[in-house]
């Protein structure tokens, strides 16, 4: 039984391998402490952290697949977590809700095709309502400014 089934790395595409190889050039002496920065860099290149991608990474850095998946799936901004990678992460924090975040959710639902999800407090409570659009926080959002930002990214 052992050794007959594919390993996760065998699911990696050539693009997956190229991305991992490129990122690891920036981390010539990999140690465990660099795992999170490496995962962040790989995701930035590929937009996700698929099974094959993580599998190949594990081979390159000689870490167990279950272990690396355990780390990657913990962090909400990483693609392996329960939080999907979406274009708009709308802040669900209470100050943002008080400032009208739920109306913005309606706007996103009805007037855009952007992928979006709720996300916990972004720390922009003095400039509510706010959202992470890609990697950048946008704040003091109104229906029109949100639509502008989202359209700008489509």
């Amino acid at each position, binding site marked *: *039984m*052992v050794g*007959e*089934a*594919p*390993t*996760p790395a065998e699911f990696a595409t050539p693009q997956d391998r190229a991305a991992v190889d490129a990122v690891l050039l920036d981390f010539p002496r990999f140690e465990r402490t660099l795992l999170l920065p490496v995962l962040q860099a790989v995701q930035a290149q590929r937009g996700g952290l698929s*099974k094959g991608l*993580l*599998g190949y990474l594990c081979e390159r850095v000689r870490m*167990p*697949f*279950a*272990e*690396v*998946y*355990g780390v990657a*799936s*913990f962090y*909400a901004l990483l693609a*392996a*977590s*329960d939080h999907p990678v979406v274009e708009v992460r709308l802040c669900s924090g209470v100050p943002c809700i008080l400032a009208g975040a739920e109306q913005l959710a309606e706007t996103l639902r009805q007037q855009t095709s952007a992928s979006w999800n709720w996300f916990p407090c972004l720390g922009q409570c003095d400039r509510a309502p706010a959202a992470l659009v890609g990697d950048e926080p946008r704040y003091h959002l109104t229906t029109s400014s949100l639509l502008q930002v989202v359209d700008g990214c489509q």
Partner: protein
Amino acid sequence: MTDALISVTVDGQDVRVGPGVTLLTAIAQAGINTPTLCYDPVMRPVNVCRVCVVELQGSRALVPACSRIAENGMQVLTDSPRVRQARRVVLELLGSSVDTSTAPDLRRFSVDYEAHPERFGDVQRVEQPVRADDNELYVRDYGKCILCYKCVQACGEEAQFTFAIGVAGRGFEAHIDTGYDAPLPESPCVYCGNCVAVCPTGALMGRKEWDLRNENAWKPEEQTIEDTICPYCGVGCGLRVTAQDERVVKVESPRDHPVTRGFLCVKGRFGYDFVNRRP
């Protein structure tokens, strides 16, 4: 190195222990039982179940007896209202979220502490499909998993160094995973079953036992249990063999075995079919 004993007070009783022992040891020395779920005498304590918590004078929060090192002068209460309340609620929280039908210790503690998990009503439970068919030797039913981490420890640095499983996700969604829920054959699992050996709830169970239980044919009252030595290799691990209807149905190793500490390999733990074949 000094041999000086440390003096701690447990429920008013003076106890002398050597340096570097845990409160759990000190409490046991006072003749008091402490409920534990995630504690294993052979593995490093992870103190995640919180059922062993005790009151320590000077500490705002209750402290886990399994991992807290005894220091001279400590005053510990193991049965105060605060301790009983915390233990009861921990047991209720567990009982309300997972299937405890094959978790004898958890059920026994729940009776001791008058835990009533049904008081929460119809609430979110750990829902996981039973993983029975990706291999022939053991079954993973994470609907029974209390996240005690013992399987991860046994597969990892505390016994096997195989690292086939880990904790994944976060919060209530945290669960044991091979990584993207890969079937066991895609993982480094070597089917030693040491994870099964340490699991306190039957979330990990040998296939033979699982099949028999499903058929209502698992009958402890008719079983014999005998200690013997594994026939396979020169290590000579101690085996504890459970037989029913003149067939081997389960193999373990005594957890207090001085050499193996309860850990076996795939041959010793699962290689008993040949014994059951009769001409």
